[in-house]
């Protein structure tokens, strides 16, 4: 594997930054009023990425203990679990717990498969908890699972709230809770899966995935980069599916009682 690549230094960064300045000038001349937001966005990009670089440099330090890496992964999972319910339109008690359980179970299972069965970290000299593999793999899976869980939960709440009378009518006619909720559950899972299915459909045609682009720029042969990307897409799809199934089913269990009642009062609209 060819690993040398052309390093970027501050002058090169400055050239890229000047392009943003030019755009701001255009905005100023045309009175679009975008220059402040554009500059703020550029500034945030710089600050956030520098911070992440710093954090990664710190995490990737040699001789990190397994406990440290696992702790890091746990923190990432928790943050993702909370973030997934941040913008859901309807809430119920325990929604955060459901999100965290689903996030944890799906992303860690898939990351374990990725590390031990696909990448087979044990072949190399580094230990399995080498952050070079574990952290970015988990990060990519979490980022996408978060979308699935968030969209799925949001849709489940919306479906149950708007189809409340329909769900109750089915129950009143003798439907089991599963039969009554099946429509909303299907819709919710489908909605959670749309983004990942779309991106699998057009990957390489409309855009080159960021990870693959990065590997190509870093001098990895295209065939290798493509293989990595295929594996990543499948892992992400699997993580998203598992996370979405899990969170929708957990939500369903909370909204319906063992006596086949729809406890619609448990569903509250976000203030």
């Amino acid at each position, binding site marked *: 594997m060819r690993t040398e690549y052309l390093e970027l230094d501050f002058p090169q960064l400055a050239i890229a930054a000047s392009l943003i300045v030019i755009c701001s000038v255009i905005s100023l001349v045309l009175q679009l009023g975008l220059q402040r937001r554009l500059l703020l966005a550029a500034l945030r990009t710089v600050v956030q990425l520098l911070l992440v670089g710093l954090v990664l440099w710190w995490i990737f330090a040699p001789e990190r203990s397994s406990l440290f890496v696992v702790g890091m992964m746990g923190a990432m999972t928790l943050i993702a679990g909370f973030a997934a319910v941040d913008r859901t339109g309807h809430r119920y008690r325990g929604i955060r717990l459901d999100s965290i359980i689903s996030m944890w179970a799906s992303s860690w299972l898939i990351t374990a498969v990725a590390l031990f069965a696909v990448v087979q970290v044990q072949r190399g000299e580094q230990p399995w908890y080498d952050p070079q593999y574990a952290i970015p793999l988990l990060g990519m899976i979490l980022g996408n699972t978060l979308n699935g869980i968030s969209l799925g939960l949001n849709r489940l709440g919306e479906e149950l709230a708007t*189809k409340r*009378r*329909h769900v*109750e*009518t*089915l*129950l*009143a*006619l*003798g*439907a*089991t809770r599963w*039969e009554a909720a099946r429509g909303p559950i299907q819709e919710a899972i489908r909605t959670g899966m749309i983004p990942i299915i779309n991106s699998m459909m057009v990957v390489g045609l409309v855009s080159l995935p960021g990870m693959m682009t990065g590997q190509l720029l870093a001098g990895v042969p295209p065939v290798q980069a493509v293989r990595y990307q295929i594996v990543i897409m499948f892992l992400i799809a699997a993580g998203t599916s598992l996370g979405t199934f899990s969170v929708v089913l957990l939500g369903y269990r909370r909204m319906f*009682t*063992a*006596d*086949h*009642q*729809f*406890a619609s009062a448990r569903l509250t609209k976000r203030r």
Partner: protein
Amino acid sequence: MSLEIRAGARLSISGPSGSGKTLLLRALALLDPLDDGDVSWQGRPVRGNEVPDFRRRVVYLHQRPALIEATVEAALRRPFSLRVHCRRRFDRDRIVGWLEGLRRDASFLGKPVGELSGGESQIAALLRALQLDPAVLLLDEPTAALDPPTVAAVEGLLRNWVEELPDRRATVWVTHHAGQATRVGERIVHIENGRIADANGIP
């Protein structure tokens, strides 16, 4: 409060709006978690996975029924896709017979549910419940949106339905209309503030 419904009973529940009539019906169909007490079928409390089968026998009819299928016929066929009704078949002729009694014809079955008036939705939902041959029909203002001749036809239809098999059928009819309460019930239960205020005719 305590309420017993025997075979052949035609019970009216009356009372002012917000007195808890709907709540009582919903509780009888076990549609809401009960704070306290229970609902028994033939002397045994109904719980857990017995509930769907119980609701096969005791059908609650919502005041504003939900129909989301494409046509009236599709809406009427829908219950037969549920497990508790899977041994039964949709009987079109029987429905058409009832429709004629309600001054409608078979073309009603082809109507898109989106174009139904409030009263027509009530008719569709009533027939959907009736075709399942429940033992008890819990009716929540089932004629609120109907014209007077059709109201009379529905009242007659349900009276005949009970009298056909008086040892196996009963109706509980919620209405705030005093005249209707006496027409459709041989017993009238008056509810106020969530309590039975006057159980006229209850031994």
